[in-house]
């Protein structure tokens, strides 16, 4: 079995460099045959694309998509400097 450390590095690189994702801030953890994706993205489509690219970069492993959507709220209180 490939060393999990290198699998995680390859998936993280793919997420950053693949034109479909270009996501730099996704945390990738590999434990045995399980891959965990964590972080925040701005829409559901991007969340799925990240999962697809991760699956391609880690064939045969089970990918757990734990990404959450950034909820952009209306502006809140202002800060006085």
């Amino acid at each position, binding site marked *: 079995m490939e060393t999990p450390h290198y699998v995680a590095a390859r998936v993280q690189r793919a997420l950053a460099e693949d034109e479909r994702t270009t996501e730099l801030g996704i945390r990738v953890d590999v434990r045995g045959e399980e891959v965990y994706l964590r972080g925040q993205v701005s829409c559901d489509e991007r969340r799925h694309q990240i999962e697809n690219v991760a699956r391609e970069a880690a064939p045969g492993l089970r990918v757990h998509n734990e990404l959450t959507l*950034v909820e952009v709220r209306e*502006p809140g209180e*202002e800060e006085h400097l």
Partner: protein
Amino acid sequence: MRELRIAAVADIHLGEDLRGHYRKKIEGIERRADVLLVGGDLTRHGTIPEAQVVAEELSGLPIPVVAVLGNHDYHSDRNEEIIDLLRDAGITVLDDEGAVVPIDGVRLGVAGGKGFGGGFAGKCASEFGEPETKAFVRHTKEIAERWRRALKELDADHKIVLSHYSPVKDTLMGEPPEIYPFLGSYMLAEAADAEGADLFIHGHAHAGTEKGVTPGGIRVRNVALPVIKHAYTVYCLNGDHC
């Protein structure tokens, strides 16, 4: 002198799939703010179609919009064209320079650009060794020097530095320390501290924190969208009431 209400956001990462979404969130911004500052990573891949979405979302607002590019906006090597496109849409884009925005008789000076990395004092890269390392560090050094000049030349009542990369570690808290050198450089803070500013706005560090301060005492705010979790945040300068 009246207070100024500065709306700020960064890392909006727009593209076709988000067309119209951000605009909805900033409708009515003129009731809350006098100017909108956008700290880079306007797009995902730095393509022209993405930049067109950015122009549509940010143009035609009743308040001035000042922006800088981020590293994502450079990815397709179309950064110059993106700058032109946004400027044609009426957005002031700073590319290592300054601009004065008049707001009801108050002159707001904004200086900055994308910025770059290198790390923070004591744990940073030096202009030494391989040409690639030297080029990396020199890029930040040259940017910092241009910002220092731009700040010095600004004739304004208030000055703000607008950047994509961070000037301090404070606002990176939450990011892995190993990647700090890719998130900012102390040289950006040094330039601002040398000439003085009221506020330093940046983005880039999605997992960072909002508030920090430069060694010279300039307030730093990381306004990356995943950090502020609002369409923008408003900072009030020179007044108790906005």
